[in-house]
């Protein structure tokens, strides 16, 4: 049985089934390694019904300005249609965007990624 958890010298590694967690393990066989240069953190995601115009959405306050992704959609013929990516202005606890014409709803994600 594989040893799937490694914690030594300040380093934590968790491996996928069948692989020993150890410093020499290639990344594709890991679930987590504390030496990775950046994380995989999604602070919050959502979908809200909004029309054309400027809107602000709050999220849990961070110690940095996170990366924001907003996509606008309109509903037609029984399907959501992608209008496109929307630019944002962000602080450490909210972001503001201007929804384009015909927007019916937006989806958004706030990531643990900073400039």
């Amino acid at each position, binding site marked *: 049985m594989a040893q799937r958890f490694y914690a030594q010298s300040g380093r934590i590694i968790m491996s996928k089934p069948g692989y020993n967690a150890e410093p020499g393990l290639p990344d594709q066989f890991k679930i987590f390694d504390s030496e990775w240069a950046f994380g995989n*953190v999604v602070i919050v995601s959502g979908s809200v019904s909004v029309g054309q115009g400027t809107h602000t959405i709050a999220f849990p306050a961070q110690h940095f300005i996170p990366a*924001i992704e907003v996509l606008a959609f309109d509903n*037609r013929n029984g399907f959501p*249609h992608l209008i*496109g*990516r929307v630019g944002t202005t*962000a602080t450490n606890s909210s972001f503001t965007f201007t929804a384009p014409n015909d927007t019916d709803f937006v989806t958004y994600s706030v990531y643990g990624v*900073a400039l």
Partner: protein
Amino acid sequence: MTERTRIGTLFGAPGMYVSQPGDNLLAPTRPLLFDSRYDGFEIHAAGRVSMPMIDNTADLRTYSATVSYPNLGYIPQVTWAAIANGSSIIHYNSTVIEPTRGSIIAPTDAALDVGPSQLTYRPTIFGGSQVSLDLFYIIYRNPRVTPTYTPAGTERVFIGNDGGTFKMRVSKPGFHARFATRDQCLVHEESRKLIPVLTGVVGIPARPNMQTAPGRVSFYLGRAFSFPPKIVVTSGANSNVGVSLGLNDGLMELTNSVLAPVTARYVIYHPE
């Protein structure tokens, strides 16, 4: 030596926390590497399917593909892209298709319907000749709308033998690690997390004016991709950056739609 790992209570919530290498967990200056207050991308299904033309009326050609996956019980987050056969160029969060470098097809319409067990993508292209298209998709075990988690004093981390079963878990807030399902865990012994593979910071020129194309910069990442990676880009407080990537040659292009130059960070995760 800075503290980088805490299994216990921090930021007022029990769980597991890890800072980035060199960053102090008690006074972090950068995003955390692992933060059990929040979610992380986990892969549910991925694939590439043909997207045949289903209608051609008055030079409006509609292509469509539907893919099915085991029912998640919620609408998941997805990465998707239409790609022309013979091309390896992916445009993220966009309807644009690039059959050959610099040759752009901009669909007039693109329906994207994501449900708990299937995804349909249906772009409509006006004019030109019929093209052969594929749909790339990655389905995540992450709801489109994050549930409201309630931190509680439950056992959030368990690594070891539990009645004859090996368990390696960090549960989401409010769930008991030993008894949580895979979707209730940030780390689970069956996890298929996205792997962080590359990051960098680049400058992107300003868009000259709103009547012209966005400012753009392109560069090689030094590796190819067998599958479209997840890419997140930020230019800080004011962000409107588009991304495309050649899977075969690793040529990445970032576009800037604002009227001032920006500095942007990209991070790339691969479903290895």
